[in-house]
């Protein structure tokens, strides 16, 4: 067998029928479109970042300065944001609310998913379907009645209003995702534990949960991101500046009708995006699996 034959076979094994395409053809059909996609998808972030460090005179003077670059970068906008606005408080609120809502939802979802997937009680199938349907109920049709409830429960303008309402979209999602993970854990392990005299609680905490850690991480970071990004409830249920979350705070307090502080706005958008982006960069695989898992199951 000649060496050319072997390389062709090796290429065929690793890349399907890729060896049928010539390089110039691949450049036009694959690389050029891909680079265009990446450019368009990333450009707003570049624009956000460059504006956040651009002095005001460069920002509005396109004739003397190339808008794509910054000549004298400045931290003024970020300093203004962190020292002269309530922004640090909003960051703290968002973190606290997202963490609490995620924690609450995870606990509720672990029990629910385990019960639906493994205990096979009467009506478990209907409840599983109900959970899926609950995931499809959008916040846009719930915010008005929820606003009324939040008001009559005396939760208006408190963090609890958000911590208690975010689970409406987190619990269905997490339960649905965890059901898929629990399904992948062999039944036999549980049966062994039952024979050895373990209770349901012990099976859950000693056997199922340790095995489902990847699922818990997926559900947890995903739920955290969803809570961090939530807008309509936070906009409706929170009024005072000190209780606002980052998305609401940036939009309602940094945007003044007379003059737009674009530098500060972009800095606010950038700093507000960083926590989820950092979290995402550490857990990319978990994100992808939870996103695809939610539709595939």
């Amino acid at each position, binding site marked *: 067998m000649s060496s050319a034959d072997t390389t062709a076979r090796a290429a065929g094994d690793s890349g399907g029928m890729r060896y049928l395409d010539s390089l110039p053809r691949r450049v036009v059909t694959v690389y050029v479109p891909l680079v265009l*996609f990446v450019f368009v998808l990333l450009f707003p972030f570049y*624009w956000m970042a460059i504006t956040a460090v651009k002095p005001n005179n460069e920002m509005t003077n396109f004739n003397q300065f190339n*808008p794509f670059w910054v000549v004298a970068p400045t931290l003024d906008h970020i300093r203004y944001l962190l020292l002269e606005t309530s922004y640090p408080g909003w960051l703290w609120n968002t973190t606290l609310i997202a963490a609490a809502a995620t924690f609450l939802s995870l606990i509720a979802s672990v029990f629910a998913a385990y019960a639906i997937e493994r205990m096979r*009680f009467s009506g478990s199938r209907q409840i599983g379907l109900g959970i899926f349907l609950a995931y*499809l109920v959008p916040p*846009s049709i719930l915010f008005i009645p929820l606003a009324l409830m939040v008001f009559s429960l005396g939760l208006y303008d408190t963090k609890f209003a958000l911590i208690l309402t975010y689970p409406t979209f987190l619990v269905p999602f997490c339960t649905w995702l965890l059901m898929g993970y629990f399904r992948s854990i062999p039944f036999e392990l549980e049966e062994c534990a039952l024979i050895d005299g373990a209770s349901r609680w012990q099976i859950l905490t000693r056997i199922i949960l340790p095995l489902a850690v990847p699922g818990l991480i997926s559900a947890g970071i995903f739920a955290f991101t969803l809570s961090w990004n939530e807008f*309509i409830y936070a906009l409706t249920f929170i009024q005072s500046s000190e209780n606002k979350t980052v998305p609401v705070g940036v939009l309602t307090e940094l945007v003044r009708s007379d003059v737009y502080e674009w530098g500060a706005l972009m800095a606010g958008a950038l700093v507000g995006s960083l926590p989820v982006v950092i979290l995402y960069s550490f857990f990319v695989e978990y994100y992808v699996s939870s996103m695809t898992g939610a539709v595939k199951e």
Partner: protein
Amino acid sequence: MTTDTLGGVARRRPWISPHALRRNLVAWIFMLPAAALLVVFLTYPLGLGVWLGFTDARIGRPGMYVGLENFEMLWDDSVFWLSVFNTVLYTTVASLLKFALGFWLALLLNEHLPFKAFFRAIVLLPWVVPTVLSAIAFWWIYDAQFSIISWVLIKWGWIDAPINFLGDVANARASVIAANVWRGIPFVAITLLAGLQTISPSLYEAAALDGATAMQRLRYVTLPLLTPIIAIVMTFSVLFTFTDFQLIYVLTRGGPVNATHLMATLSFQRGISGGQLGEGAAIAVAMIPFLLAAILFSYFGLQRRRWQQGGTDR
């Protein structure tokens, strides 16, 4: 603990045995936290919302039952019908574009590439970042005076004056759709990519040996195998696009002259900003039939998928 061991046997009996009863009881205790949260903050508000649609409630004043009055008012309200039209237009155009571009991107990412994982990670970024914050970036990109797009086009000599992105009816609609598509492509692309990766390469090889061109392989191998996951992804996409609120609220607040008002933003404007809770709720209720259609579509999509995989319809 012996009772649990016997539970498997007890389950098969036609009557409810004490073992099964106890098993059910434990299961219901496990279900309790999730069920309580969902019933109180999801099912009840859903019912309350429908009820509110039939009342004249305002902020700070409990409403009276007024029958179909809100809906009759909306029926004669040209702004409401404009918002319905906008929502359907926005959903249709944005979903089609998201599907076409997302599918294309998924096919590109499914190629054998260097730094494949890196590309996939980067592509998902628009979806991870808070919508409101990326929408603010788009607001700046669409600025009437200092838009970077206008600047580049003027530089290239394609246009003479800056484009009025958000101040003109057609431009504003195109701009918000573009921003929505930008945010939605990653979701479609990454989920379809996951579907593509499950298709065995040997099918393509077999098709190629039989003389199928690349286009034919796409049309007769990829698409049919991907149909179930496309149905589900697009249902989710349609659902979230239809009920979109954030993007419009940031970019246009429904303007110019209500040309970009969606049902969700109109519901917020009438219900919360205007204080007419009943009318706002009625607009939200009017969205439900559309959502039900999407959910039914998704349900049958799921059924079909199990069947295609050789599983049983549970």
